């Protein structure tokens, strides 16, 4: 708990405790912990002198924030239009088959979270999957299965 608050404070200090920094602070905290711990939301509200409800509303409004812990690796399947027409739904079907995951769900061992993203702007390489900031291009269901297997093995 102490540690969490220390880290949150460090982020707030970096951006300055101003209302206009709210989103930037929350992005960094969310990235740091892989989600927004309950304590962090309260702390941000205190330091920025705004109601907890405002921080909470921003946290639930934007897609990137999670209020529950997510997997160590987050697999983003792009579902932009170009990826959609080039077979992104098949990648999601394969994940459902192999891991039993729907988008937004995490494996029980917290190894991996499956998420979708509305276009990462790499449309020429569609369909694409982003893992830890690395973009994989022209992914097929088989490539996807191999990629996930690799992640699970590394994580174990």
């Amino acid at each position: 708990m102490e540690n969490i608050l220390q880290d949150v404070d460090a982020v707030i200090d970096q951006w300055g405790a101003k209302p206009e920094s709210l989103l930037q602070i929350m992005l960094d905290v969310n990235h740091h912990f892989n989600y927004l711990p309950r304590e962090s939301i309260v702390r941000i509200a205190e330091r920025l002198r705004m109601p907890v409800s405002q921080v909470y509303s921003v946290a639930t409004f934007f897609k990137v924030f999670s209020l529950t812990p997510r997997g160590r690796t987050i697999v983003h399947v792009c579902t932009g239009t170009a990826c959609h027409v080039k077979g992104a739904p098949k990648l999601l079907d394969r994940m459902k088959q192999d891991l039993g995951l729907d988008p937004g769900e995490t494996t029980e061992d917290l190894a991996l979270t499956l998420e979708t993203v509305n276009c990462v702007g790499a449309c020429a390489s569609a369909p694409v999957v982003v893992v830890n900031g690395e973009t994989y291009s022209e992914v097929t269901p088989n490539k996807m299965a191999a990629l996930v297997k690799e992640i699970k093995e590394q994580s174990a």
Partner: protein
Amino acid sequence: MERLKSIQDLDALRQQIIERRKHIRKRIRVCNGTGCHSQGAERLVDAFNRALEERGVARDYLVVPTGCNGFCAAGPIVVIEPQEVFYQRVKPDQVEAIIERSVLADEVIEELLYVDPTTGERIVHEYEIPFFAKQERLVFKDTGTNFVTDIDDYISRGGYSALAKVLSGMSPEEVIEEVKLSGLRGRGGGGFPAGVKWESCRRAHGDIKYVMCNADEGDPGAYMDRSLLEGNPHQVLEGMIIGAYAIGAREGYIYVRFEYPMAVKNALWAIEQAKQYGLLGDNILGTSFSLDIHVNRGAGAFICGESTALMASLEGKVGEPRGKHIHTVEKGLWNRPSNLNNVETWANVPLIINNGGAWYASIGTERSKGTKIFSLVGKINNTGLVEVAMGTPLRTIIYDIGGGIPAGRRFKAVQTGGPSGGCVPERLIDLPVDFEKLKEAGSMMGSGGMIVMDEETCMVDVARYFLNFLVEESCGKCIPCRVGVKRMHELVVGMCEGRARPGDIEKLEELCYAIQETALCGLGKSAPNPVLSTLQYFRDEYDAHVHEKKCPAKICKPLIQYVIDTDKCTGCGLCRRRCPENAIIGAKKECHCIDEELCVRCGICIESCKFKAIYIE
């Protein structure tokens, strides 16, 4: 870096940079745009640098990690200058050969050249490739040849000369007049004349004003703003600085999606470098004009591309739009006069100032001036970013530049304008593409995404896709969008799943018109467009889904069946072993068949069959 204190300082610096680089014999351009990057371009840059150092010639040849070249289908791309020899799909183990044969010597490596799919000929030079030859690259000219992370490179190409011109003798009103004369219209989707917007913002009362750059490029399938901000951030910055001068702003924001980490990074260093040279910050180029620009990241909300939602988000609030009866040029960010333009719009500004508004107005059509960058993606051979003059026929874009549809399939439609736009069908292939013509065709320009669809794309599924997107992305503030779009989605899903009843199409249409008239913001009002345009041109497909319970494109799973051709099946058993549902039965060396009850229509069997014995009915 020393701060530049006058326009003369900038000119002197430019001469110095050019002088300093005279000894460079060849430049090795390695595209580092998003597409090439995802295919390992960074490793190529390292490999080239290492190879040059090992040979002790790193001073004579320069490896240039460039912004997006545009021809993403050929990535990773390497171009050797000055000859402009174009190598495609380059791998790190080919670097040695390129250095030896094409850099140190003047040979051309045949196997790395681009092959024209129509003639089968190998093409040596970049400018000869049809994809480039038919384009008119103005805004996107330097992205793809520049050294992205080097402000000196930008300055040596004449960068910041437009800013110098403005500061050395143009009044803010003159700048606005020039932009008005150019006829530049907002490239983000609305198409509002930029000069008129600037003028209203300049005239608005208030000491503190803001300029903003909308880089929240949320339209799925569009990535030109990403490539511009990533690949040539100084051009965008220069446009913003000129805009701020014209409007009278001292502070600016770039609002960029967090999904574009490289754009964030490149915008930040560009600002840092510009500040060090005194091109940003206090007393720019020794004048009394000062400006600060900040970069703010979005957090994954499509609606934040809408101007009022973007400003709310900048203020640290939930990104909900408000009614537009109060104009943002008068009361925008923190209720102060604010001017928001899109990345591409800002990038046009230096060109207009340098070459004059009249020059700019001579390009394009009567009411749509200049060029437009489109992202040509989907079922097309030459995927990538293309810049053409407004009014270029769709046929030129799809066939001459885009190289047509892969695998000899038929072109069916092109989707433009993202979730606010619509589909333009094959019979309008000769449509000149500009703001007006696209609107007349029931679509819109949007930010410039062009998603090409072939005969294997189901138009009802496309409508379902966009509705699903809009349901997820609706901010929930107004009922027509929050509830109405959800009801539309339910109806269309029903069609795709074979549950639709007669009369559903009419119900869907009625909802479309109601939402168009009553939604709060532009995105809500335009939400029915994907449905209306597909209904307009592909009503027969809707009819087939509703009345015959059939999907003509064979995409909607509940309406199709996988069947094994008894003549072609050899009974090899591969599909039976691969099928995750054990839905395929049959003895060895005998014809197999699929149990329709168990089949989940995943398509693994079709992918694995070597005899093409499985088809969809």
